[in-house]
């Protein structure tokens, strides 16, 4: 037991004396959370639009005011002819052009139909679609304002309620995602690096020629990282709650336990990686390419899994990150209990046991 304690203490010295490790451990979560929370978001704020108003009557001006009154659009410039539309887009900051033809009010009043043309820069298709939807919604609203409620003989009125995330905040998606990413990074990459470092520096040679058992060596290296990954999940949760007002509807205890579980899964992956390679460089490459990329792309955190081709969806199933993401969203946003998330939890447990078993079997009691 004394041996184990001393080993863990030694590991802590390594962590706290290496500035780079510390930076990755604590700087990374903060930067990522802030980046994803504030900067990288798919919501629309202050999209720059250009207006080509050819009628310049009160109706058309009210439409433009209506659109810019929301925080979604901001008029970047007024155009005076069709020819200016192309250059406006090409300059890059204008994402949407609203073209109001001449005699707008006249057509509306007398012909009962008025046309508005919306042009978007579809080089970014997602933004373009979102912009069109926003603009359409506003135009319809404006139309209703003008006409008042018209009783139609038959109507289908759709009432929309956004459940679990009524204000459609992107942060609610990113906090669990970033948490998954960071835990993967800290636990898997850092452990694989710390174990391969012993091999690279030759200290593993001395550790092997000692009474220490392989299990003891691995456990001693991993325990500090379990604690660290737990602290980091606390930091991310705290930031999510206080900075981004992310709710935790389910039980906090369950949430923390799940965090520890995922930390363990990632650690066991890290151990597995380190048992397959002898250099820190390779370990890092495997962790980054083999774990980080799939975690970002295939866990359903940036891109929805449902819209991916079938083979990729199947591949995503082997990623622990996918299951942890499901657990996080269910517990935090939907208030799910263990009964609702037992399946992903069981899958994570299974993966952890599997990875640990394989890596203990693969641990080399000799060099080469």
């Amino acid at each position, binding site marked *: 037991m004394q041996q184990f304690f*001393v080993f863990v203490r*030694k590991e802590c010295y*390594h962590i706290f004396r290496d500035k780079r490790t510390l930076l990755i451990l604590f700087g990374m979560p903060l930067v990522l959370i802030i980046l994803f929370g504030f900067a990288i978001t798919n919501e629309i704020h202050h999209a720059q639009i250009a207006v080509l108003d050819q009628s310049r009557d009160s109706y058309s001006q009210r439409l433009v005011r209506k659109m810019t009154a929301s925080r979604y659009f901001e008029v970047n410039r007024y155009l005076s002819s069709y020819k200016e539309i192309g250059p406006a887009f090409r300059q890059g900051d204008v994402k949407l052009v609203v073209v109001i033809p001449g005699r707008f009010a006249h057509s509306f009043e007398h012909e009962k139909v008025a046309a508005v043309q919306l042009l978007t820069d579809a080089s970014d298709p997602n933004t373009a679609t979102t912009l069109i939807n926003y603009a359409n919604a506003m135009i319809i609203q404006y139309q209703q304002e003008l006409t008042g409620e018209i009783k139609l003989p038959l109507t289908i009125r759709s009432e929309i309620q956004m459940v679990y995330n009524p204000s459609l905040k992107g942060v609610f998606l990113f906090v669990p995602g970033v948490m998954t990413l960071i835990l993967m990074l800290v636990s898997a990459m850092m452990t694989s690096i710390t174990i391969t470092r012993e091999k690279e520096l*030759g*200290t593993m040679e*001395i*550790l092997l*020629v000692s*009474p220490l058992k392989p299990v003891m060596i691995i456990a001693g290296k991993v325990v500090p990282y379990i604690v660290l990954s737990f602290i980091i999940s606390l930091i991310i949760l705290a930031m999510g709650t206080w900075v981004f007002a992310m709710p935790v509807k389910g039980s906090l205890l369950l949430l923390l336990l799940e965090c520890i579980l995922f930390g363990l899964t990632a650690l066991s992956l890290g151990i597995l990686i380190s048992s397959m390679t002898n250099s820190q460089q390779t370990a890092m490459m495997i962790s980054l390419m083999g774990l980080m990329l799939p975690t970002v792309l295939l866990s359903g955190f940036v891109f929805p899994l449902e819209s991916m081709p079938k083979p990729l969806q199947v591949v995503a199933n082997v990623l622990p990150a996918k299951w942890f993401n499901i657990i996080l969203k269910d517990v935090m946003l939907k208030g799910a209990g263990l009964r609702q998330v037992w399946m992903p939890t069981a899958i994570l447990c299974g993966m952890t046991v599997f990875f640990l078993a394989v890596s203990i079997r693969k641990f080399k009691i000799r*060099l080469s």
Partner: protein
Amino acid sequence: MLPIVVEHIHKSFGDLKALHDISFTVNEGELFGLIGPDGAGKSTLFRILTTLLLADKGNATVNGLDVVKQYRTIRREVGYMPGRFSLYQDLTIEENLNFFATIFNTTVEENYDLIKDIYEQIAPFAKRPAGKLSGGMKQKLALCCALVHKPKVLFLDEPTTGVDPVSRKEFWDMLRRLKTKGIPILVSTPYMDEAILCDRVALMQKGAIMQINTPANIVAGFGMPVWAMKADNMYRLIRDLRAFEGVYSCYAFGEYLHVTVNTELENVKAYLAPLGHEGLEIKPAKPGIEDAFMQLMQEQNELA
């Protein structure tokens, strides 16, 4: 029970024969040296004996324990200092020493008498990270760490490589003192001048042992007279001597050349005279272990 017994060990890495039919024994309390240039297979042999590598063929025992079957017990009982500095660079001297004491289930205090002489030399720097120590101090610390659990056999793989001459001498003084405590030591070195400090040495080259004997016997077994020669232009002298068929061997040795001949010295002098070497000096020299090693090496190369 002999501390180390090696019987017909073979080891290859792919096509490379690292060790070829190695056999030797180390006696109780003996300081046994493996002498040979880089690539002779010394480190591989150490790793086989410290249970880190498996031999392809042959047996070895350490303290009567089989290196394959009883590797766990061996790992508890031996002290091993690898060829490369393998302590934690970011830990201080104190922390390294305490760490290795604890993982061997002991304390620094318990065996302090064993490491006292060595530790006192590095104690003033106890709070300094191991990575910031000089080469000599690093090796002293590594020796302390290998000794702290009072090993029954000590394996030191090139402990003085990359260490300054003064520290090398100090290091060997410490080994002699350790020997008096009865710990058998297997040490390897590429330096010939350290060979004479061992009780017995095995001269190794290209994975094979050429000779095992005491340093004195190896020197005594060197049957030829050795001539020390010197001239102002040493490079030309070497070339001319090697070109002469009467010269058996010719190596630079400090400021002189050590030359053995298979003809009369007068013939060599007659050969050199017309070549006009300035400041030529020829005198008899006492053969050293280097001469023996060089000769053995040459013979082995001629066989191959």
